[in-house]
């Protein structure tokens, strides 16, 4: 009987791809000059696990390639060659190739062995061509076959006071191989036993393939609080030179005879751990949570759960309606139970929402690599600053943000940031700064992409706008208008299209993408000082606070966030302007007035009897005439595109308590349709 290996494929792909992302980030740190053994080991291990899994899960080509890659990385961590930029380049290319191969395998496409060979050739060059003297031959002892270690571990009396737990340590050791532990009770006092003190010591016999280093690492956090001796080990480990200072001494304990060395060692170790602490990887500190605490769940399952919760909320509303029709004496106890249900449903909804939330680092994580590559291609010097990447956002939103953000970053590097010489001539720092920032503000998240480049050149924008016929040749173009014009279709002030951002997509697509997420984008710029793009988005796409409005016998939902005010137009407040439709006067300001009934072809009340809802999107305002306001409601957004298609001016649909479908209006599109008359009926 054979086991169907395919059941493991999904998690293999997702874990391997995650591992590659981490490796990419680590390689970039390597390029930045970091050389800690932890870093080198992490890079090695990520590829090592992919190799192991690929081989056993039936992807021999990926296994073979990663095996070669791993050998090179092993040489790297042993210091057999230096990670110069060229070497990092090749290794990044290998990471890309593994990622590509994984994706191909995921989609059951054939493996391309040609690329394998080309990269393997370059890897071989790396190993041979860079054949320098090993720099730190002591870096990591080889795991040369099973070794037997004898560990003597005597915690200091105050061991527990610092929150340490011997059981956890033993569990980690046990996970490395076969562990036998013998406790030494001789120090237990006859009298005056203090339960907060540690009187025990242990002799541990560990049979493992791991290196001595890794065993010493397990005690890394507690070595100041114990006496520790590690003896024995595999033949390879035993033959290694352990005299160099970078290595933890085999006996890393706080033996009173050598107080200085362990102390320094302990300090270094913690510093190193703190530095790597922000990373998700659990490679270095075995006391951190094991990976099995994270579950990989398919998006479809989560969406299903979300839908089910949405249904529950709707069912609850139906119950409430039925209850309101019951005689009062019968409804008393029901009412209580229903309130409880309401409470629980809200709790459930909140927790499901929180599962869907992911930190912005999922979107920001790709930019260090992109910026590096773009800099290399263009010869510009850019420092990337990322902040607020822990801010959480609905994963669907994050996914859809990657493209617009990528475009903005490319745009900044291509158009905004000047070449070093030009910057120096302008009296600026040679290295430009590009910052990505995310921050929660109320129910929204604000994402800023800012550079300190040349800013938006208003004259060039004007010239281009005249060329495109967006403004007349004599029209003045104000700052705000110039900033708005760059979002027009077909707009690019780049003199020539190039590899970096000239792919025929403009900022209009960015704005469209952002509006599709119910968000807005604004730009601020100062000539010579830089440009800031600010994107504001709701935290989730799944739920919206809405106002239900009526037109004839139909009803629609308007997102509450885009409603400025509601007014009943007084006599004379509505005026018709030839060719421009109606305008509504509010406190001396004239807003375009559109009847929702007319727009959507429903018989609606005239302007004198309806209610005008003033809406705002992308900094523009308009008034929408409806027959009546029906009240506020929190609704679960459902897409029309799953089974149908995108409909102009409609953001989605929702299902009301009684099961009826109601459309949610897309205010951004409504405002734009007023601006560009060709969309008007």
């Amino acid at each position, binding site marked *: 009987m054979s086991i169907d290996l395919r059941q493991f494929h999904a998690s293999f792909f997702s874990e391997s791809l995650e591992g590659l992302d981490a490796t990419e980030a680590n390689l970039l740190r390597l390029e930045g000059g970091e050389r800690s053994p932890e870093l080198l080991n992490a890079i090695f291990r990520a590829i090592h696990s992919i190799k192991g899994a690929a081989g056993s899960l039936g992807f021999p080509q990926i296994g073979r390639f990663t095996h070669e890659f791993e050998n090179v990385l092993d040489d790297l961590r042993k210091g057999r060659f230096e990670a110069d930029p060229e070497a990092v380049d090749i290794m990044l290319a290998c990471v890309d190739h593994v990622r590509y191969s994984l994706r191909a395998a995921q989609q059951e496409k054939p493996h391309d062995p040609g690329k394998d060979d080309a990269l393997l050739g370059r890897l071989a060059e790396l190993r041979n061509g860079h054949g320098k003297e090993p720099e730190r031959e002591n870096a990591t002892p080889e795991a040369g076959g099973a070794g037997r270690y004898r560990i003597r571990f005597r915690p200091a009396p105050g061991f527990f006071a610092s929150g340490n737990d011997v059981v956890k340590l033993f569990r980690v050791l046990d996970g490395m191989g076969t562990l036998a532990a013998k406790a030494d009770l001789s120090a237990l006092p006859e009298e005056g036993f203090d339960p907060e003190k540690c009187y025990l010591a242990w002799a541990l016999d560990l049979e493992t393939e791991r290196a001595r280093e890794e065993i010493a690492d397990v005690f890394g956090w507690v070595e100041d609080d114990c006496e520790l001796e590690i003896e024995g080990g595999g033949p390879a480990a035993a033959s290694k030179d352990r005299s160099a200072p970078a290595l933890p001494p085999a006996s890393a304990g706080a033996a009173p005879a050598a107080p200085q060395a362990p102390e320094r060692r302990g300090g270094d170790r913690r510093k190193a751990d703190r530095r790597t602490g922000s990373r998700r990887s659990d490679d270095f500190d075995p006391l951190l949570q094991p990976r099995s605490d994270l579950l990989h769940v398919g998006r479809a399952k989560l969406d299903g759960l979300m839908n089910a919760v949405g249904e529950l909320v709707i069912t609850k509303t139906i119950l409430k309606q039925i209850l309101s029709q019951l005689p009062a004496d019968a409804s008393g106890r029901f009412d209580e139970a229903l309130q409880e249900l309401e409470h629980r449903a809200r709790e459930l909804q909140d927790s499901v929402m929180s599962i869907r939330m992911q930190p912005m680092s999922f979107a920001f994580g790709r930019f260090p690599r992109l910026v590096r590559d773009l800099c290399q291609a263009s010869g510009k010097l850019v420092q990337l600053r990322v902040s607020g990447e822990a801010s959480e956002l609905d994963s669907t939103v994050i996914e859809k943000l990657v493209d617009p953000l990528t475009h903005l970053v490319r745009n900044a590097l291509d158009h905004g940031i000047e070449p070093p010489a030009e910057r120096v001539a302008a009296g600026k720092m040679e290295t430009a700064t590009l910052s990505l920032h995310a921050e929660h503000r109320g129910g929204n998240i604000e994402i800023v992409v800012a550079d300190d480049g040349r800013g938006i050149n208003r004259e060039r924008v004007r010239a281009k706008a005249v060329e495109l016929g967006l403004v007349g040749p004599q029209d003045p173009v104000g700052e705000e208008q110039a900033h708005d014009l760059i979002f027009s279709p077909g707009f690019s002030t780049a003199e020539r299209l190039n590899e970096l951002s000239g792919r025929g997509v403009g900022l209009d697509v960015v704005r469209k993408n952002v509006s599709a997420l119910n968000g807005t984008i604004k730009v601020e710029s100062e000539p010579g000082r830089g440009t800031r793009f600010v994107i504001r988005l709701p935290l989730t796409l799944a739920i919206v606070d809405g106002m239900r409005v009526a037109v004839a016998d139909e009803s629609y939902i308007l997102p509450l966030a885009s409603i400025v005010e509601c007014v009943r137009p007084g006599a004379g407040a509505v005026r018709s302007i030839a060719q421009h439709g109606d305008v509504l006067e509010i406190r001396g300001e004239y807003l375009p007035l559109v009847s929702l009934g007319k727009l959507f072809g429903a018989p609606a009340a005239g302007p004198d009897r309806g209610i005008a809802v003033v809406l705002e999107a992308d900094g523009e305002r308009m008034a929408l005439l409806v027959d009546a306001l029906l009240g506020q409601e929190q609704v679960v957004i459902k897409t029309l595109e799953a089974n149908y*298609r995108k409909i102009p001016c409609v953001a989605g649909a929702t299902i009301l308590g009684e099961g009826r479908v109601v459309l949610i209006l897309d205010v951004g599109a409504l405002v734009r349709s007023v601006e560009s008359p060709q969309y008007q009926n």
Partner: protein
Amino acid sequence: MQTLQAAGEAAQAGREYLSFVLGDAQYCIDILKVQEIRTYEQPTRIANTPAFIKGVINLRGNIVPIVDLRVKFGLAESRYDSQTVVIVLNIARRTIGVVVDGVSDVMSVPASEIKPPPELSGGLDTKYLQGLATVNGQMLILIDIEKLMTSRDMAIVDEAAAAE
């Protein structure tokens, strides 16, 4: 080649079709595309869409568009009464409801019985027809429902999505 051959064999064996009435003609569609059959309920209208798109309904939490084939085929009158039913189809990973005058039967049509369609005038383009067949003395019009529903004419699927 293998799939072609398999399809050929299946066709020889005869496939199962769902037949329904539109106006005074009997039409058939591949039963494997049919998810369920429901009574007609008033959908929520969507503005600025072709007349044959009746709107969308809530099908157990999913928003499903409703197409009235009678309007699409230009049949004189579209009544909505107790006989009117909606055939819910599963096509191109989408769920779409189709309004018809009534569902008749599930029948097996041998491939040998299917004849190429003549050029018809009227609402239905022959490129959406699989052919004509006569079963038990009755003429059936076989519609390639997937081709029809994903076609540009119907404008149900976004063009970008259709190109996938």
